[in-house]
């Protein structure tokens, strides 16, 4: 018989690797990822579904993993910031963009920001500046004022599209 304290078995794929876990129903996905899987890239920021620091990619959607139970991820395909780099270990276009464009200062929001931007560029490979800003509206950054984050995503979009990154005229 099911009970609130009995742990449930879940199986999912995280960054391409099959993963099994035992979780209480109330375990939040972010806690499972950080504590059970020891993937501490996704951060716990506000814990109230606002800041986006805990953003992961789940079944092709950007999800705030502080607002999903781990049991709900049974069978899911998940990508965290640890799975964003290229297969050969080099930086992905987005990671390179954040480095080249100085898209971070303290870096706390960066894993969520890059993971969200990853999905945004899958859905819209050539976004306008406005679309980028609307698309990352669920991720808060308290350092940069977003300007360099937007440039970093523009840099990545250009690189993925095989064109030279050009800054828009001021």
């Amino acid at each position: 018989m099911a009970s609130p304290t009995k742990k449930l078995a879940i199986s999912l794929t995280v960054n391409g690797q099959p993963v099994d876990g035992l979780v209480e129903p109330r375990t939040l996905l972010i806690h499972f990822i950080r504590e059970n899987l020891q993937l501490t890239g996704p951060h716990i920021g506000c814990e109230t579904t606002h800041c986006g620091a805990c953003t992961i990619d789940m079944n092709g959607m950007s999800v705030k993993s502080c607002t999903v139970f781990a049991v709900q991820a049974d069978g899911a395909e998940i990508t965290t910031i640890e799975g964003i780099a290229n297969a050969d270990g080099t930086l992905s276009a987005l990671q390179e963009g954040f480095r080249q464009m100085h898209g971070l200062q303290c870096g706390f929001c960066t894993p969520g920001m890059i993971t969200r931007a990853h999905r945004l560029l899958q859905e819209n490979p050539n976004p306008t500046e406005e679309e980028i800003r609307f698309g990352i509206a669920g991720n808060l950054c308290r350092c940069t004022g977003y300007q360099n984050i937007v440039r970093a995503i523009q840099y990545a979009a250009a690189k993925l599209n095989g064109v030279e990154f050009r800054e828009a005229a001021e």
Partner: protein
Amino acid sequence: MIPGPFTYHRPESVADAVKLLGELGEEARPLAGGHSLIPMMKLRLATPEHLIDLHGIGDLKGISRDGDRIVIRAMTTQHDLIASELIGSAVPILHEAALLIADPQVRYCGTIGGNVANGDPGNDMPGLMVTLDASYELQGPEGTRSVAAREFYQGAYFTALEPGEILTAISVPVPPAGHGYAYEKLKRKIGDYATAAAAVVLTMEGGKVASCAIGLTNLAETALIAEDAAKSVIGTSLDDAALKRAADAARAIMTPAGDGRGPAEYRIHVGGIMVERALKRAAARIRAA
């Protein structure tokens, strides 16, 4: 912030979910997108002993046309609504409103069923559904029934849902071809609930308003249908005097609470402005077509 303990259930049919709700009683809650319920559980403002996750139920998803109505199954997400060409062409105001809800991550999870069934006066879709005169399909131990959105809301978080019932679908009459529409939402920042918002669907003939419905969000304990305001613009060309009359008629039924979004007086003031702007923009859409 960790939710209290609960037992997790994942039924595979609506019938099983209804059966579980009936057996487990008041300590059981259905879990849709979870983006209202889980934050409440983390704050321990909600402590359900059982969660009945509706994600395993295949026939609770999807959007289809049924004659002159659009049927949106309850677990359809805001993201699905935005991606739907059927919604974009037949009921575009829902497309416009869904883009103003929360943020991208929340829209991937948040469902239309949860949004309308929760009874939260801050949610946007109830205001849209009363404007469109939609009806809700409810399934419970006694079978299924249909309740008009305009009859569904009784108070903040109080609705016509009986214990053991689940909202399974929303049926929206398709507005006439060539109608004008607008949803005007004033909010402090992206992702916020409305300080005040107004939905308008209207038709015009010969430059005059022929039919009009106006709904209001977060300006009372429930979404409101502003009947007098809508009637007051019929037969007018929406000149400044008509807009002002409509705004004043709408203000007369607003009873918002004062909160972090401003005192009641302010919210009533801007609520009228949202009505004026929505009327103007809806009419402009017709004139531009």
